[in-house]
């Protein structure tokens, strides 16, 4: 109705000059019609007016039209043009910031998109090892739910289905609670977090949405040396220290040393919140610097005993890592170094051999690092993004052995991964890469592979 009135009034206003030369009675009739239509929008319009001449009536219509257009603009916010302060909700008295306007591309960019009340990401892979056929795998289907109880108490969770199917007693997939924690926001530099939390170690463990990293599979170092996705039960403190420094310091459930082994290092020792122990909580801290545009540096330290399932042996696992990400113009680079120390590794091997009959050959030190440069080949102004990347990884889960144990050279590995990430949208990544794997063994050969994948975040 408002639109119709506006259109009619505009039409009349535009044609008034020639109409002035026409019949004044006809003009008055049309103005009366407009007044009647305006009263449909505002029944009070003209009720108290006694204006009789056309000029006064037109001035009233003009004024009312201005009010209607302003109100309509406030309600709909249809364009990126500036909305006036009247578009903001009523302000509480005494507030310190007074909103004036909101403008830009924020409406046009999201207009027409579907926004769901949950977030999530999905990851579909097609993997092929040399000599094998392609294997399709709907690797991850993850839904994230958050809720704000108030501005100071917030909940966040992540529920994951891996490999599409979960059957009782069979290793076909898993349903896992990856995160479920509460944040109590106290001060910028000091907040409390408690629940099932991601361990803040490395790059990918906390930011593993498929479009946020190159390569179909996550880096080997962040799988074998850093057991991504690594989550533990616990609580801790987080905060922004200013000048770009942030920290997270947690006490968490400990790793289970009874599941350490030569090939995967400590990875299988993640308890993931199930049958975990808090008798000797692990301590961990991460300090991040993001004070310079496009540069993020981080260092993480983890330390905790892991012997709650190995009576008589209580090895301490200590991990240290450094990581960084930087991009300059159309170039990206990211890298990471991580080292793991396992105390009492010899005693642990002997204990596990007694328990299970097999020597797991756990090393006393494990080490890994990678470097990944990438280039965005399309100009920034294009809608799509194509990233060519190469990653070199070195990861050795038998880096230093306890006295009396020899390293298994097939687990001293390196990989070259090169490929392309195509993003038709910033939240959708279509990936291809080729993986050259090498190891130090003269007997056990490494297998190369091709990976195709599509992942998306919403």
């Amino acid at each position, binding site marked *: 109705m408002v639109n119709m009135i506006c259109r009619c009034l*505009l039409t009349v*206003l*535009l044609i*008034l*000059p020639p109409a*002035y030369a026409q019949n004044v009675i006809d003009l008055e009739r049309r103005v009366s019609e407009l007044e009647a239509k305006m009263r449909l929008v505002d029944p009070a319009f003209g009720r108290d007016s006694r204006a009789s001449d056309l*000029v006064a009536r*037109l*001035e009233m219509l*003009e004024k009312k039209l*201005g009010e209607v*257009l302003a109100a309509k603009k406030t309600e709909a916010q249809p364009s990126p*043009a*500036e909305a*006036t302060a009247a578009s*903001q909700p*009523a302000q*509480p008295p005494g*507030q*310190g*910031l*007074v*909103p*004036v*306007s*909101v*403008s*830009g*591309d*924020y*409406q046009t960019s*999201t207009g027409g998109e579907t926004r769901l009340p*949950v*977030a999530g990401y999905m990851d579909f892979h097609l993997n092929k090892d040399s000599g094998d056929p392609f294997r399709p795998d709907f690797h991850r289907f993850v839904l994230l739910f*958050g809720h704000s109880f108030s*501005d100071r108490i917030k909940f*966040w969770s992540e529920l994951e289905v891996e490999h599409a199917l979960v059957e009782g007693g069979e290793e076909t997939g898993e349903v896992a609670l990856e*995160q479920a924690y509460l*944040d109590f*926001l106290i001060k*910028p530099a000091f907040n409390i977090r408690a629940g099932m939390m*991601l361990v803040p170690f490395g790059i990918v463990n*906390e*930011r593993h*949405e498929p*479009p*946020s990293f190159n390569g179909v599979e996550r880096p080997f170092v962040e799988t074998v040396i850093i057991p991504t996705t690594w989550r533990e039960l616990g609580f801790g403190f*987080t905060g*922004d220290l*200013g*000048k*770009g420094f*942030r920290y997270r310091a947690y006490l968490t459930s400990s790793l289970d040393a009874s599941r350490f082994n030569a090939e995967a290092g400590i990875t299988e020792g993640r308890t993931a919140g199930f049958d975990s122990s808090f008798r000797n909580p692990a301590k961990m801290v991460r300090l991040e610097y*993001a*004070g310079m*545009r496009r540069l993020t540096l981080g260092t993480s330290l983890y330390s905790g005993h892991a012997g709650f399932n190995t009576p008589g042996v209580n090895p301490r696992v200590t991990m240290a890592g450094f990581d960084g990400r930087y991009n300059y113009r159309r170039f990206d680079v990211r890298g990471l170094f991580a080292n793991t120390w396992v105390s009492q590794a010899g005693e642990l091997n002997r204990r596990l051999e007694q328990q299970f009959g097999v020597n797991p050959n756990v090393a006393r030190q494990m080490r890994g690092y990678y470097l990944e440069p990438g280039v965005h080949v399309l100009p920034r102004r294009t809608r799509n*993004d194509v990233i060519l990347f190469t990653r070199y990884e070195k990861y050795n889960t038998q880096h230093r052995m306890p006295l009396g144990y020899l390293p298994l050279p097939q687990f001293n590995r390196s990989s070259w991964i090169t490929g392309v990430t195509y993003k038709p949208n*910033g*939240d959708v990544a279509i990936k291809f890469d080729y993986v050259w794997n090498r190891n130090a063994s003269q007997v056990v050969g490494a297998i190369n592979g091709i990976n195709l994948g599509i992942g998306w*975040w919403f």
Partner: protein
Amino acid sequence: MRLFSIVLLCVGAVGQEPAARKPDRVISIVAERFTFSPSKIEVKQGELIEFVLTSDDTDHGFRIPGIGIDVAIPQSGKGEARVRFVAKEKGSYAFECSRPCGAGHNLMRGRIIVK
């Protein structure tokens, strides 16, 4: 003739945008999982501030609790959002990401310090 002049005024008034005062300061803020850069912004009392908000990755949100500002920041390469406000009173005011963006979303926050 008088009526004709009014008609011209009416037509002109319909096409007119409200005059925008030039902000005292324009500050660029970049959002990226899970941080705003800069995250601590100091302004002077009484200034008209304009934030130019862009993202380096996915869509984010920009919300200042309590004063009714909550806008979407379009994903990288899809433009920007601009927010203007007057720093009326001294104090520290939090802003936060209002669109779920991943594991660190809850702590994707910053502060405006009005001096």
